[in-house]
């Protein structure tokens, strides 16, 4: 194979596969131009699954599949542009695809054990992905931490699942959601949910189950970090969706079953769970933001930012109405482009010989204006500046919380205040890039096209940028779809 590297072949296959899957998912979602490719009849989507089903196709699940595939696609595409033809390419792309598979399966789960196992597929693949540069002590240290906390969380999740199983005699999500609060042992179930929140909260980097994330995002190869932050962590959110929201699920119990203020269940603990999720959401976004403020390293700052974003997403679950779910999903979608994109830029910049500290980015605005602008756009989006998807997604989310009334309004206020706080650390990066003078010595970029970035990575970044702006300026086509999916999901569930 003259001129074509091993990496490029493997990666090309991965990219092609992901692209094909994404196309099919889009077709199944009812994207009109791809109607011919539809494999899943519309009648099979968004029906209430049988009580024995392990998986079911919901619009929201398909949306999440699409989101995961997009994240993986971005990362795979960017990974084609690596300076050296590493041996690990096969493992890297293989594990990436496996993790993506696990994520997509999680998105369509209708059974708790199925869900947890799918999450575990993602977990095992990502532990190894983090550690795959097997000579890098930082990467291995990160993998070790990731693994230990991850395994602990797995144990907690399964322990929680066992309690639910004990309470209701089934692990089917529909059974669980319908049974909840009416039969069984509420305390047992609540404890089970508590442990599941902890175990899955690890994936979603909720505080205080988040501490691993910073070190792992920092230590992992940056492309992997992009995948972790943009892709695999969202699997936790999917799990929360499936667990807590459905046709007569825990959280939707409030509007659906309480008629005239009378709730038919003897022990309706949906409000309790909502409260717990709300508390965790607020704590998560606050801690993430406050800690991000003083970070000196770029990746760690972005990691904390990612944690706070998880808090926003969880807010959607705590509120639990269809608009909130749409908002949270939109936030996830936006976050794929923002955060994955940001980490891909970080990887590109690291490839240019720039150090890990934020201050090392001095003067990037002058040296690499296009790259810096792309990064700035991503940060502005993360900060929630208008005309970017980050603003609109937060807006949709918070307004949904306000629409739900009650104390959810205060969740929205907390969210807004937090995004206000977050602006400062993003702004600091902008300042460093554009205001501070360039260092004297600038290392030579590697021998890749486009000044050391490479076509593929540039394309991935460009896709992210275009998506951020496009979704920020005209969100309605996508947002409308998400809203419809969320409505279906609330009505029919997993």
């Amino acid at each position, binding site marked *: 194979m003259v001129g074509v590297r091993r990496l490029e072949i493997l990666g090309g296959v991965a990219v092609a596969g992901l692209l094909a899957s994404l196309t099919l998912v889009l077709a199944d979602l009812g994207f009109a131009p791809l109607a011919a490719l539809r494999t899943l009849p519309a009648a099979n989507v968004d029906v209430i699954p049988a009580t024995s089903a392990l998986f079911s196709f919901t619009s929201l699940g398909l949306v999440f599949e699409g989101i995961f595939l997009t994240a993986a696609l971005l990362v795979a595409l960017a990974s084609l542009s690596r300076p050296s033809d590493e041996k690990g390419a096969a493992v890297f792309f293989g594990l990436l695809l496996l993790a993506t598979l696990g994520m997509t399966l999680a998105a369509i789960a209708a059974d708790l054990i199925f869900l947890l196992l799918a999450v575990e597929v993602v977990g095992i693949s990502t532990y190894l992905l983090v550690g795959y540069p097997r000579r890098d002590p930082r990467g291995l240290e990160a993998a*070790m931490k990731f693994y230990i906390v991850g395994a602990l969380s797995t144990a907690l999740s399964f322990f929680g699942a066992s309690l639910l199983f004990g309470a209701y005699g089934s692990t089917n999500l529909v059974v669980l959601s319908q049974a909840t609060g009416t039969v069984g042992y509420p305390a047992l179930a609540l404890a089970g949910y*508590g442990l599941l929140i902890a175990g899955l909260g*690890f994936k979603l980097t*909720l505080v205080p189950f988040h501490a691993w994330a910073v070190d792992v995002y920092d230590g992992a190869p940056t492309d992997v970090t992009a995948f972790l932050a943009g892709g695999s962590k969202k699997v936790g959110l999917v799990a929360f969706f499936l667990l807590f929201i459905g046709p007569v699920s825990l959280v939707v119990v409030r509007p659906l079953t309480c008629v005239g*203020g009378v709730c038919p269940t003897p022990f309706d*603990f949906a409000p309790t769970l909502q*409260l*717990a999720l709300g508390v965790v959401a607020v704590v998560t976004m606050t801690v993430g933001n406050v*800690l991000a403020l003083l970070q000196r390293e770029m990746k760690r700052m972005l990691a904390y930012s990612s944690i706070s974003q998880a808090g926003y997403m969880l807010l959607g679950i705590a509120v639990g109405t269809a608009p909130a779910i749409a908002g949270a999903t939109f936030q996830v979608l936006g976050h794929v482009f923002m955060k994955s994109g940001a980490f891909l830029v970080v990887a590109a910049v690291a490839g240019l010989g720039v150090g890990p500290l934020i201050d090392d980015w001095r003067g990037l605005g002058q040296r690499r204006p296009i790259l810096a602008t792309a990064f700035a756009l991503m940060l502005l989006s993360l900060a929630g500046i208008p005309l970017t998807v980050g603003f609109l997604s937060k807006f949709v989310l918070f307004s949904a919380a306000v629409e739900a009334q009650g104390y959810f309004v205060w969740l929205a206020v907390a969210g807004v205040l937090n995004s206000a706080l977050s602006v400062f650390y993003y702004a600091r990066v902008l300042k460093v890039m554009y205001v501070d003078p360039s260092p004297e010595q600038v290392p030579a970029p590697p021998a890749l096209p486009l000044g050391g970035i490479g076509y593929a990575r540039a394309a991935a970044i460009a896709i992210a940028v275009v998506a951020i702006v496009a979704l920020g300026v005209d969100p309605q086509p996508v947002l409308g779809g998400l809203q419809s999916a969320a409505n279906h999901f609330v009505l029919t569930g997993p």
Partner: protein
Amino acid sequence: MGALDFLFGWAFLVPLFPALAFVLVGLGGTRMKRFEWGGWVAVALSFAAMVVGVLIGVGEMLSPGTYTDTSTVWLTVPGPVGPFPNGFSLVMGTLVDPVSALMLIVVTVVGFLVMLYSIGYMHHDHGLPRYYAELSLFLTAMIGLVLSDNLLEFFLFWELVGVCSYFLIGFYYEKPSAASAAKEAFLVTRVGDVLFLLGVFIYFATYALAGGGAGWAAAGFKFASGNGPFLGSLVTGASSPTLTVAGLMMLAGAAGKSAQFPLHVWLPDAMEGPTTVSALIHAATMVAAGVYLLAVTSLFLGFTPTDQLAIVAVGGFTTFFAATMAVVQPDIKRVIAYSTISQLGYMVLAVGAGFTMVGMFHLFTHAFFKALLFLAAGSVIHAVGTQDLFKMGGLRKHMRVTYVAFLVGALSLSGIPPFAGFFSKDDVLASVYSQLGAHPAYWPFFLLALGAVFLTGYYIFRAFFLAFHGDRPRDAALPAAHEGPWVMRVPLVVLSALAVLAGLFVFAPPFAHLLAPGFTVGGIAPALQGVALGANVPPVYGTTDLALSAVSVALAGGGVLTAWRLWGNGRVYALPEGSPAAPVRRLLLNRYYMKVGYDWIGQRAVYSVARAADFFEQFVIDGTIRGIEGTFARMSDGLRRIQTGVVSDYAAYVVTGVIGLLLLLLFLGPWIVTALGGG
């Protein structure tokens, strides 16, 4: 009304001539190689203004009345405001009535003469384009002020003349004292201005509320004949404290502009400007605008008795107070400046006593003889290059024209018949005298005004003798004096003639119309006296009490003679050591220490407050905010330490989280949910 009506329609042209000069000279002046051309442009246009101005004045004499020409809506104030549900319009227009016609004549005539004189006087200065432009702008504004047909327009031009005065006082801006004097003038008058503005507001609201002045206010503070009598009925019904305050605010504005106590401090310092400027602005016209304001106010708006007493008090006191300071001044211009303050006091006094046109008459004569004195002094200064009286001496031999002119001016100022000053000053005294019976509180101020007559005669002749008499200059270093060019001599001659004749104008029927009774007393006197003087009361100047005239002439003559005795030989005496007069002299030379006090207030008190505020700003307000920021940073730093890097700790956080969640879900949660009202 008459065949001459078209003339009053031209009134708007008068200020436009100097405005054109301002534009031409201001924009084109620096391009002219020989600037005399620019000066002549200004002179020519001011001449045109004078021609039209005098024509209008004559027209008013021949056909007395109030002629308004409101052509432009300046801005529309949306309603509801005050009592006007649909708002009102602020307009720009002209109003010609006897008062403004009188004033117009003064301004245009003196303006032209000073402009002409400047050609010679300012010949050697640089920055002439600026000079002529600013002087033309001043004329524009002053004429605009005179012709204003509403109070807002009045205020607008009032401020503009102030700023022109500022620039012209600071004409020699390289001199720190000039720059400082300019600032001082602006600031002190500004104090009066803002109070004036407050007065405008009060009138606006009060007239509007009373309903009768709706026409006045609805048209935007517009003057209209008939408002005054309305006020008379308003205030006799219930002496409105609001209106009293409004009147006092007008007085404050007038005091600032006309340098009345206690806002008089700026005028002597304003002598830092060129003498021509002193003559035009700080003697004849602008400083008289305060009196004009009071006149306009009394005619169109009216004063309450309390206001009148206050005005009389200010005027009477200032008259004497300023005269005392003039007595010891070594600077020829300052002597005349204090004299101006004192004379303005007479005018204010007359207006306060209810005899508006008497005050205006004194303003009229004063403009000429004071301009004359200043221009004559300018001639002297031009010749010898100093303003210090004690250095001059014996100038009469070299400067015959100036000598005579100054003498005429001094006689007129002192009130020696038949010079112009005699008639007007006599009227002023008579007007106050006529009110004494009605209002005993006027007595002290009448006596002060009488005393000032003596002082006037003394101080102006002291200056006269010191400058012109004796054998030779006391300072040998002075250059040989010589008369100025014809452009300087002509104004002196013309003004001398006016200083002699202006007083006699009252006996000339057309001119007398301007001072006719219908306009003189308005509706104020009834309010004051409780006696309806009616519209046909004989003019005051016709009832001059001969005894009073005799006393005043005697006092003036006494003053002149005292000056002759002390200074007539042109010699200078030193006060003997330990003389009881020495501390008095020091007090007077230091202007009763009022300037020191004001400077202390301005530079120490206010500035200290400002410094303290700045300190507070930087250390308390900003410091608090920095402190909050710092606290946040420290908190964040503390939180950062929880990321120990040890994975066991991370696991511990997880376990803690589990415990927290279980506690929340099993125990606290239901309780909180209940407390929140069911979520």
